[in-house]
């Protein structure tokens, strides 16, 4: 008995299962989903609202687990991801896959039964989009992986909105588009300073395939596009001036930081890549602030404080 157990690997800790859901990414997903839900014109019962957000979080966690199950070998080759439960050998792949499928199915079923099947269908689509279309199909094949894959992260506010209202209108589609067009400059700023890691494992990220200069130009292109797009909810009368002005200020700063990255020459060996790191850090703050402004604006309009 003792001999058999000595060769058996230890089971994974619950913390490893939790780490598999990418909690840090999930916080942004929960936040944007919650903002979509709160900014919707129809109110939802708090318990049902909580359930909708829980389903979005569970779905994102399930998709993240499936992503790590599929990419375990690639993760092992990158410094940033080598400590994850699978590449570090703290969990077997089957457990990760089953956990991912279980979470995904549970989130869609709960969303369908408790909230509505339209929100559940979009949630299911977002999971398939991330775990299959992005992770398995696009990421290893094309440098445009981030552009199309950005759709996966853009679903939460759309799902939150649909959970509250039960239907799709222009506003949640614009919120989807904002995150969709925000994703490339956000990830490419990161890819510029972790380029060697991606190159090592053969992932065709834009800086690796098209080069730094092209990536920098494309970051600038998306930052320019984001300026009118972020203010579009205000222009179409979907929000008030508080959101509109906040969106313009935040997007102008985004554009200025992108200009520093976009007009910069290819970094030399040993470059600290400060502008790229600043843009990456600001891009996270940008999305949080933009969606917070959306909710604040909605609250002020509902209270009759702002028009």
């Amino acid at each position: 008995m003792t001999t058999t157990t000595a060769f058996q690997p230890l089971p994974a800790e619950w913390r490893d299962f939790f780490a598999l859901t990418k909690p840090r990414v999930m916080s942004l997903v929960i936040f944007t989903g919650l903002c979509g839900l709160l900014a919707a014109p129809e109110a939802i019962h708090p318990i049902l609202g909580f359930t909708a957000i829980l389903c979005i979080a569970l779905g994102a966690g399930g998709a993240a687990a499936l992503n790590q199950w599929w990419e375990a070998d690639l993760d092992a080759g990158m410094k940033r991801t080598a400590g994850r439960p699978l590449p570090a050998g703290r969990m077997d792949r089957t457990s990760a896959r089953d956990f991912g499928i279980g979470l995904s199915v549970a989130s869609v079923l709960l969303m369908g039964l408790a909230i509505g099947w339209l929100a559940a269908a979009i949630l299911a689509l977002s999971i398939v989009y991330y775990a299959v279309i992005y992770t398995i199909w696009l990421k290893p094949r094309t440098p445009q992986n981030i552009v199309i894959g950005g759709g996966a992260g853009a679903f939460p506010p759309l799902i939150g909105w649909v959970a509250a209202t039960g239907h799709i209108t222009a506003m949640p589609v614009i919120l989807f588009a904002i995150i969709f067009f925000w994703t490339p400059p956000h990830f490419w700023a990161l890819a510029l300073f972790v380029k060697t890691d991606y190159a090592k494992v053969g992932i065709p990220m834009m800086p690796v395939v098209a080069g730094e200069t092209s990536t920098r130009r494309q970051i600038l292109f998306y930052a320019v596009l984001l300026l009118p797009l972020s203010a579009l909810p205000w222009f179409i009368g979907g929000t008030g001036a508080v959101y509109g002005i906040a969106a313009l200020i935040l997007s102008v700063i985004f554009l200025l930081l992108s200009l520093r990255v976009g007009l910069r020459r290819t970094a030399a060996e040993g470059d600290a890549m400060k502008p790229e790191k600043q843009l990456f850090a600001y891009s996270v703050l940008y999305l949080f602030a933009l969606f917070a402004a959306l909710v604040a604006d909605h609250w002020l309009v509902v209270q009759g404080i702002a028009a």
Partner: protein
Amino acid sequence: MSNLDPEAERKRIIRSRNRVFAVLLIGFTILVFAISLAKMS
């Protein structure tokens, strides 16, 4: 010292996993009750 014993470590991991699972199960049961009440109101 017990951390060096694989069998004790295995038991500790399984115990902590069971505890988390029990908490999640209780949470889920409460949530289902709460959803039912919210749907009825």
